[in-house]
């Protein structure tokens, strides 16, 4: 058993080391660095959505809206009050958390499809308001954001985003493994049973909303300070469906699965933009997304735990679970 725990930490350490060392190889290619940084950002979004939807069972479609709230708060503060990006990021994060609190409170009674519909409505209203009030928000032209600090390089941005990803993953894993994680999981399985067993359903439902919106608000405000511009298109449902597709393909019930799934799909989609094989030049354009959608529905139908599940399962849980199953079988044999 001990030997297995070691191997999981080794896997994580190898992965982190690889990610930390990657810039040494890619130093000459700012484009690839930017792609990787974007992939980290989507990994944060997908894994936090996995926490909200996969683990806590709250099917919110407002994740990108919280990204937008964080980034727009930071951007507007920077533009109108001239605050430093750090202050803007803090304010953006808190703002996203606050709105998350309100949405969480409003959504208490709503379940499954109703919650999905309500959050779609919320993000659409927000997007329409931002597009329409262009005198204040620059509308569809997009709001300019200053760089994180003067003379920031691609490598630094890479490390900042990587640190954010690792930090949020650590936080979310800690949460998912704690009593809190147990409670939200029980809520997902059966809300009434959970509250009958003494879980304060109201409190945990609101808390999970606040925590995930804080995470994405932070990620959004930092990431869009790097991109330099945020447009209302970020909050479109199509963008949201991208995050959902990534999380589902990677494995919705595993934070690591969702993060790796998002990272790989983002990277893959970007690399497949155009391919050159044997002199043939292929512009894939929207076809790669169509194929991605096909992959999404087949994953859902035939591998509900995500495509990465077998790998993660082998690394992390298999031995432990086999043991318990074996024990259970033994126990029932003894009983009967």
């Amino acid at each position, binding site marked *: 058993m001990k030997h297995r725990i070691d191997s999981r930490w080794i896997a994580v350490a190898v992965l982190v080391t690889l990610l930390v060392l990657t810039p040494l190889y890619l130093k000459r290619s700012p484009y690839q660095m930017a792609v990787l940084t974007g992939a980290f950002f989507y990994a944060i979004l997908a894994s936090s959505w996995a926490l909200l939807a996969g683990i806590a*069972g709250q099917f919110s479609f407002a994740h990108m809206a919280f990204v937008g709230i964080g980034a727009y708060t930071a951007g507007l503060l920077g533009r109108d009050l001239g605050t430093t990006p750090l202050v803007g990021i803090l304010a953006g994060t808190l703002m996203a958390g606050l709105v998350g609190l309100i949405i969480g409170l409003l959504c208490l009674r709503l379940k499954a*499809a109703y919650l*999905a519909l309500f959050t779609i409505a919320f993000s659409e209203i927000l997007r329409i308001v931002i597009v329409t009030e262009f005198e204040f928000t620059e509308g569809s032209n997009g709001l300019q954001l200053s760089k994180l600090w003067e003379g920031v390089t691609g490598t630094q941005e890479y490390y900042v985003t990587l640190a954010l990803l690792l930090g949020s993953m650590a936080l979310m894993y800690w949460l998912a493994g704690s009593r809190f994680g147990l409670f939200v999981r029980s809520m997902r399985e059966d809300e009434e049973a959970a509250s009958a067993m003494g879980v304060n359903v109201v409190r945990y439902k609101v808390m999970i909303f606040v925590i995930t919106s804080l995470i994405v608000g932070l990620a959004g405000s930092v990431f869009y300070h790097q991109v330099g511009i945020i447009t209302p298109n970020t909050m479109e449902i199509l963008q949201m469906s991208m995050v959902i597709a990534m999380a*589902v393909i990677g494995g919705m019930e595993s934070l690591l699965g969702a993060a790796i799934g998002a990272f790989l799909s983002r990277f893959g989609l970007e690399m497949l933009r155009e391919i050159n094989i044997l002199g043939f030049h292929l512009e894939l354009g929207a076809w790669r*997304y169509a194929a991605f*959608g096909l992959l999404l*529905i087949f994953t859902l139908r035939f591998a509900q735990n995500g495509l990465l599940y077998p790998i993660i399962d082998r690394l992390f849980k298999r031995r432990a679970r086999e043991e318990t199953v074996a024990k259970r079988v033994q126990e029932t044999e003894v009983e009967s």
Partner: protein
Amino acid sequence: MVPLWYFTPNLDRWYWAGGTGVLSAVELYGLFAITQPDNLCVTNAGYVANQASNGLIIGSIYALTAVGLTLIYSVQGIVSFAHGQSYMIGGYASYYFLQLFTDLNPIVGVPVAGLVTMLIGFAFERLFLRPMHLGRIERAGEYAILITFGFGFFLQYTALAIVGPFSQKTDTYLESGSLHLGPLNLIPNRLVAAAVGMVLIGILLYFINHTWTGKALRAVSMDKQAAAVTGINPLTMNTLAFGIGTMLAGMSGAALIPVFTWVPWVGMLASTRSYVIIVLGGLGSIPGALAGGLIIGLVEALGAGCYPDPSRGAAYKTAFGLILFALTLLLRPTGLFGRES
């Protein structure tokens, strides 16, 4: 506002809810008239009537889209998140069919689009939703949301890949520009679209209420087990309901492509609007979807026409419906005609 607050706990009859709704709308209008005495909506009754009639016309075709969605919900118990994409596909099916011929009235495209989207709906239901109804899939509710959503995603990008990000439009139904009826200034083209919507809803209601298959559909929507006992196969009915629902979405798309220009992401707005309508009318209720469609058409038209700043009013058009939607979800999730679950 006072009666609204007063009656909130016993909004258990649709006429209470509807009556209070109308009352609060009147009060809102009064408040609006006091704060904005110069607005066209206060000074010019003809303008209001005109906006309202146009809203009702467009609302009846919104209702057609939403009826399909509500039919799927009532039989299968799921909300199809691919509905707007079916609407979009219907429009394109009609468009490409009409391209094959010259001088064909676009109304011919409607049944063609219906056929295409119905087949798509049948195929999707058989392949992806039937296993869920057979109990082969864990957490059916979540699966239903995600699988329909994923299917919509797939249709969306496939259409984008095939058609490209350009807007397209078929010929209009009729040539003439506008029709004057007293103070009303109606657009015949839209009237035809609305008539198509109304006729199709009429056919659907006849089918649901007076044919064996329609009665079987309703039976399944009321009680699956009891229906199965009387010899109705719920699985067949599920497939049928999904197919008809998608077909209605496709037909409404085909009915509207001569009126609006078509781009691959036109379905996003249509689906959001359909959600608004079916929740407002009550999930699973066909009369509710009809009423909801008309109400949303009215709210959008009046909201856009009466907003103090006209350019913003047009931009906020969808938002008015969405706010109504959010309020319905929060105050009365069963909607106007909804059943208690």
